[in-house]
């Protein structure tokens, strides 16, 4: 059963899955960090309260998060085609993955930043720090361990979404599992893909834990 063709196919599946996950996670953080930061600083009692902006952002984030991923993926097909020119393949899958992940990542970042002690922010204000300086020199660095911990959660969630995308044109291990396990009843191949997914999830989590621990200066 383990012929060269199968191994190559699995290797390609792993690569596709990793590619989609890593690229989507990266882009989600690029867009999600501003969302999370705005949610924190614009809230009532934040360092730069803007109740209206906060309310709008809050609703948009909740709306986007309430879409089941599969439906969101189909709903944004026109947008995906506009951006990437196609609706199948890795790059096409990245578009809905990022759209689904940005609000999720925004919330993760929001909750990490909220853990930063308000007293420390106040101390920075007493020293004449601007809002931008508080974000870049206090909130983000102080929350770093929690942010790294969250990034493992985000990557693993995005990995799960990417596997789901196999049902509607996405690639990677999810596609293999659906194609062989569901359509062709080749449960052994499905089983192998699941094992591979588990291994990848484990690796992400271990990497996240390691980075979190390493960055945390609060424990001696």
């Amino acid at each position, binding site marked *: 059963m383990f012929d060269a063709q199968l191994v190559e196919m699995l290797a390609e599946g792993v690569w596709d899955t990793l590619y989609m996950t890593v690229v989507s996670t990266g882009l989600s953080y690029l867009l999600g960090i501003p969302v999370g930061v705005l949610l924190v600083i614009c809230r009532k009692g934040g360092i730069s309260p803007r109740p209206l902006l906060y309310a709008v952002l809050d609703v948009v984030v909740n709306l986007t998060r309430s879409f089941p991923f599969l439906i969101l993926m189909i709903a944004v097909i026109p947008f995906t085609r506009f951006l990437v020119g196609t609706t199948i393949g890795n790059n096409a899958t990245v578009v809905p993955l990022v759209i689904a992940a940005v609000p999720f990542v925004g919330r993760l970042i929001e909750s990490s930043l909220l853990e930063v002690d308000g007293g*420390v922010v106040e101390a920075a*204000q*007493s*020293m004449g*720090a*601007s809002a931008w300086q508080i974000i870049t020199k206090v909130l983000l660095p102080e929350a770093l361990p929690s942010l790294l911990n969250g990034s493992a959660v985000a990557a693993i969630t995005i990995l799960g979404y990417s596997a789901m995308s196999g049902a509607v044109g996405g690639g990677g291990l999810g596609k293999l599992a659906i194609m062989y396990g569901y359509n062709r009843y080749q449960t052994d191949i499905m089983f192998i893909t699941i094992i591979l997914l588990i291994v990848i999830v484990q690796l992400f989590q271990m990497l996240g834990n390691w980075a979190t621990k390493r960055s945390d*200066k609060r*424990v*001696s």
Partner: protein
Amino acid sequence: MTEAPIIQIRGLEKKFKSKNGEFYALKGIDLSIERGDIFGIIGRSGAGKSTLVRCINMLERPTAGQVLFEGRDLCSLDGRDLRLARRSMGMIFQQFNLLMQRTALANICFPLELSGTPKAEAKKRAEELLDLVGLSERAGAYPSPLSGGQKQRVAIARALASRPKVLLCDEATSALDPETTVSILALIRDINKKLGITAVIITHEMSVVEKICNRVAIIAGGSIAESGLVEDVFYHPETEAAKSLVMPEALRQESLPAGRVVRIVFAGSSSLEPLVGSMILDCGKAPSILYSDIRNMDGATYGQMVMQLPDDEQACARIRAFAAAHGLSLEEISHV
């Protein structure tokens, strides 16, 4: 004082709005803090003392009144001007509020980074400050393993980095044990003397004010009940709020024994013990002593003694006469 006060608070008011209407945290506050003062603001929790100190550097915006810092009203400042003004006021906190992800040295560099000081210069200044607070050997340590006293030393060094003119201390020793408190207060006094930095000390502990402050304001219910030189306010409190803070718990009206109870205060050179001894000899009857303490403030001895007078009019009169003759202030605090 010929010089204008460094901080002058006029008609300060801070009103909070809640569901149940408005609530005045501070009302009609007037205070002058002179350059070089170690100014204590003492009150019970909820009296508004923390709000008051936060109004000095606009961490809380007063709803009315003025806070003049070197003659400039901080309430009128915004954005960049306010941020620049804040750099002339260092602040330390009860919970230290250090950046946990930065080393002691990097914490002290923080305010210098904010003001755009070149890295090398900031590091040099931070090292000097660490030396000043006696923590040079912990430069590379993160705050987490440091003791409370060490954390507060780092916080003090950080507050001094931008060469402020005023150091605001918000319950800076309340999280520390008595011994550490003494050493931190000594450090603040040192800084005041050596660097000429005016200190504003917020506390609920009498002992803190006694140890280092030259002036004190007593705050109760959002207003200043009394203010002045520490020895005046402590030994001749005029308002109820001041009395209840200055007098030890055991001497509250409700816990006093029946009979005539007086409080004798002596200040300056006179030493209490021989005086009390001769007073007893003089009147022929022994009062029972309920409370006594003697303190050294800025080199002079101050003390107070609370005693229950004998149940004998003549003896009482003698004691009064004796006190008057020896310059002791005697005040009747109950005669139920």
